[in-house]
Each structure stands twice: as structure tokens, then as C-alpha cells.
């Protein structure tokens, strides 16, 4: 096999292992739209990365972190519905990113690559980012697992029992931001959230504990990456979208199997 295919596979699997457990929390906390907003704002981070000549992931990380903090603040201070805030931030930051990139003279950017991912262009440096960053995300997630699960189930109950909710929330948001920066290269801005949501949702059908779901989601994500890569080579398809389609097929499969096995719950 070509080296670039192996690197693509390694990158995809690395991402799937991180996105599964983290995505489970995104699903439980009903933060799909939040993840989407962070992903949209990533393009502004890319523009900043070009502008200041820093690694694009760093630019993405900074912008995502700012957007996350802005969101938390706006939600605490004002009575604006949070999906309205998210909608405003998502699309204004995406547009701002597009406008900023258009302003930069002499810059030729593969916009399609950023929007839909370009896993076959993964470099060794990207792999360092994915595995280094991925290890940070998973390690931190393990550390905050119990308090995060507690505030996910009932925030005030957890607070009364002594969990400090705000720091845990902020750390979790930072993890989501980091994961989005890592996933950008593989599935692109517009499809990033799918890697968080779909494997987790597919895993839900056959698990009984939160931990099982996190592990199963990672497994489903890996299958989707392998299947998507194979299919995209076989039929010459765009890789990012093919991975997402594969994940969706797995979701449809597990969900309908579950429905068939226990018709009462369907």
C-alpha cells in the first residue's frame, strides 16, 4: 500500500478513537449544534493562521476557544436563546473566515479541502497533531469523566454534591475545540460534527453503560474510517464524505437491528 494511504488510515483511526468517547458526551449533553458552531468558526481560525503565519491548527484552536468562552458568557449573561446565539456565531464566523481569506492577496487556498476535508493530504506533522492532541483529549476526558457525567445527568444535583460545574464545562468545551481542530483535515469544517455525533448515536443501540457507549462509538468510528477509505478508493469518491456516509450506514444498521430485536422499543 502507498504510504499516503497508510497515513490517511492512521489519521482517520486516530480521530475515530478520540471522537467516539467525546462525541458520546456531545450527544448526551445535546451539544451537536454547539460542535457545529465551533467547526464553522474554524475557518476564521484558518484565515488567522495564514495571516499570522502560524500552524493552522493553532489558529483554529484559538478561535474555537474564543467562541466557546463567548458562548458560555452570552448564555450566562443574557436571556437570548442559546440556539439563536449559536446560529449567529456559527454563520457569522464562517462568513467572516471566507471574507478574510478572500481579502488576503496572493493566497491560494484549497477551500474545498477545508470545507469537506482532505485526508489523503495528511502529512507526518498532521499525524503528530492527531495522536498527540488525541492523547491529550482522551487523557483529560478520563480525568474529568465522573464529574462530567454527573453534571451531564443533572447539573444542579452535581453542584449540590460538590462538583464545580463551570471548570468541568470549560474543560469539556476545550476538548471539543481541540478535537474539531484535529478532525478538520480529515472530514472538513462542514462534516466535523458528524464524526462526533454519528458513531456515538450508532453505538447507542447495543450498550448499557456510558463507558460501553464511549468504547463502542470509537469502534464504530474506526469501522467508518476503514470502510470509507476502502470505498473511496474503490469507486474514486471524495474520502471525507464517504467516511461520513459509511458511518451513517452503520447508524442505520445498528438502529434498525435494535428495532427488530426489540419491537416494543421501536
Amino acid at each position, binding site marked *: 500500500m502507498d504510504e499516503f494511504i497508510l497515513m490517511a488510515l492512521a489519521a482517520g483511526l486516530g480521530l475515530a478513537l478520540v471522537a467516539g468517547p467525546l462525541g458520546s458526551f456531545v450527544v448526551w449533553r445535546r451539544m451537536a449544534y454547539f460542535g457545529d458552531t465551533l467547526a464553522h468558526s474554524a475557518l476564521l481560525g484558518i484565515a488567522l493562521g495564514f495571516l499570522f503565519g502560524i500552524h493552522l491548527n493553532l489558529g483554529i484552536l484559538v478561535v474555537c476557544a474564543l467562541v466557546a468562552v463567548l458562548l458560555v458568557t452570552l448564555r450566562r449573561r443574557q436571556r437570548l436563546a442559546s440556539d439563536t446565539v449559536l446560529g449567529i456565531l456559527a454563520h457569522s464566523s464562517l462568513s467572516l473566515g471566507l471574507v478574510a481569506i478572500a481579502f488576503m492577496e496572493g493566497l491560494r487556498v484549497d477551500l474545498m479541502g477545508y470545507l469537506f476535508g482532505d485526508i489523503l493530504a495528511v502529512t507526518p506533522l498532521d499525524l503528530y497533531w492527531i495522536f498527540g492532541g488525541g492523547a491529550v483529549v482522551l487523557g483529560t476526558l478520563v480525568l474529568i469523566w465522573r464529574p462530567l457525567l454527573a453534571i*451531564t445527568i443533572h447539573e444542579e444535583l452535581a453542584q*449540590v454534591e460538590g462538583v464545580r460545574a463551570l471548570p468541568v464545562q470549560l474543560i469539556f468545551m476545550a476538548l471539543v475545540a481541540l478535537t474539531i481542530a484535529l478532525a478538520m483535515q480529515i472530514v472538513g469544517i462542514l462534516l466535523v460534527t458528524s464524526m462526533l455525533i454519528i458513531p456515538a*448515536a450508532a453505538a447507542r443501540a447495543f450498550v448499557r453503560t456510558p463507558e460501553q457507549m464511549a468504547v463502542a462509538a470509537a469502534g464504530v468510528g474506526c469501522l467508518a474510517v476503514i470502510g470509507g477509505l476502502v470505498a473511496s478508493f474503490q469507486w474514486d469518491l471524495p474520502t471525507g464524505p464517504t467516511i461520513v456516509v459509511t458511518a451513517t450506514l452503520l447508524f442505520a444498521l445498528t438502529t434498525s437491528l435494535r428495532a427488530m430485536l426489540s419491537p416494543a422499543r421501536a
Partner: protein
Amino acid sequence: MPAVQSLSGKAMPRPALVRARGVAVRFGDRWVLEGVDLDVVPGRITTLVGNNGAGKSTLLRVLLGLTPPAAGSVERSGDLRIGYVPQHFAVDPNLPITARRFMALSGRVDRRRWREVTADAEVDTLLDQPLQVLSGGEMRRVLLARALLQRPSMLALDEPAAGLDGRSQGALYRLIGSLRDRYGCAVVVISHDLNLVMAASDEVLCLEHGRIACRGAPASVMEHPEYHKLFGSHLGPDTGVFPHDHHHGDRAHKVAGGGHG
């Protein structure tokens, strides 16, 4: 008829777990709580009653430390451990978790305590059920069991009887009373179910527009003009759990206008 007595006037043998003085809370321009004094004392069941928007939930949140008061002071004793049963509890259907795991999530639990608590709250048969399939009453019992696992010095219950049928409500309040007797914990309850509340309380606080309209022992509060103004005059206990030595003229009925706070 006994006059309404201020409980703070009596000698208190045990120090308060939470001591709130002159507590006030403001949402925007609106004061939702003003000048409230309250001691949460071990072994005493304190009930907060009042109409919608009277400030019951806000006061409980202040006692729990969830809402910081805009004015006044709240002192907590060092041995304050709170067991909390919130009114609203819904877990995302995508989160797979059993009652057993949920109960164990809060920390280390020794086996004897676990057996005692699951028997008290009658949750033995519910332990392996996913939280999402539990009925409102079952979920309330699981929350109560979880709260007891903390060995609470203060038990806080927000509308624990909401959505239960009459018989379950009576049983729930009897259970709360017996838990207090056994563990000697302080209990703070919010309720709309005035009959039941009166029956199982040591101290009742009637809140109106964020202020205490009247307070005292249940029997004396019931005779207070402010109480009648708030809840009508044909109110009396009919649950059989009230240690009750006099009779009102007519049968108790539900008070109109009580929704959820």
C-alpha cells in the same frame, strides 16, 4: 387558638446547619426574595409553601448554595452534607445508565448503607432499570435513595409529591418523617400539597412575593390570617398522618391556583 410563634425566639439546643439572615435575591429589576431569615436545624422538618413566584424555589436554591444572595448572609456549618431531590429530572434518552450506576455515581458507598437505603426508599426492584423507563414516582424514590447515600445532615426536597397520587403522597411524607427520626437530619421541603405539608412539618414558612407572610408550627400557621388570605380558610389535614387534636368544620379540599413553582 395558639398564636403564631417565632421559632427563632425559642432556645435552640443544636446549632443550625445553615443560617440565613436577611437574604434577598434579585432577578433583573425584580426582587424575588427579600429579608428572609431561616435556620436549618438538625431533626427539624421545615416546609416552604406559597403560590407560584412566591420565592420558594429561590429560597431553597440559596440554602443549597446554587444561587448567591444579593443581600444578607448565609452561613453554613462545617458538617453540612446535603442530600438533594430536585423536582425536575430528565436524562437524555441516548445516555445509557441504570438506577444502580446513577446512585453509585456520587462516590464511595459501603454495602450496609446501600442495603439500608435501597430498602428505605423501596428501590430494590428498580436498580437495574435504565433511568429513562422509570415513572415519575419511581425516579423520585431513586433520587431520595441517592440523596440518603450521602449520609446527609440536610435533606432538601423540591416538590417531592408533585405528580404522585394521594396515597403515595401520604406514604412519601410518612417516609420523610421516619427518615428524619432515624437519621436526625434536617429536612427542607417545598410543597404545594398543603394538607400533607402541614401534617409532616415542624415549621412552616409561608412565602408571598418573596417575603415571609407567616411562619411557625403547622397548627398555629393554619390559624394565621395571612395564611387564610393566601390559601383560603377551608383547609385542613385529611391524611391521617397529622398529630391533630381539633377538627375543622368541613372537609379539606384542594386549594385552587396551585401550579408548579
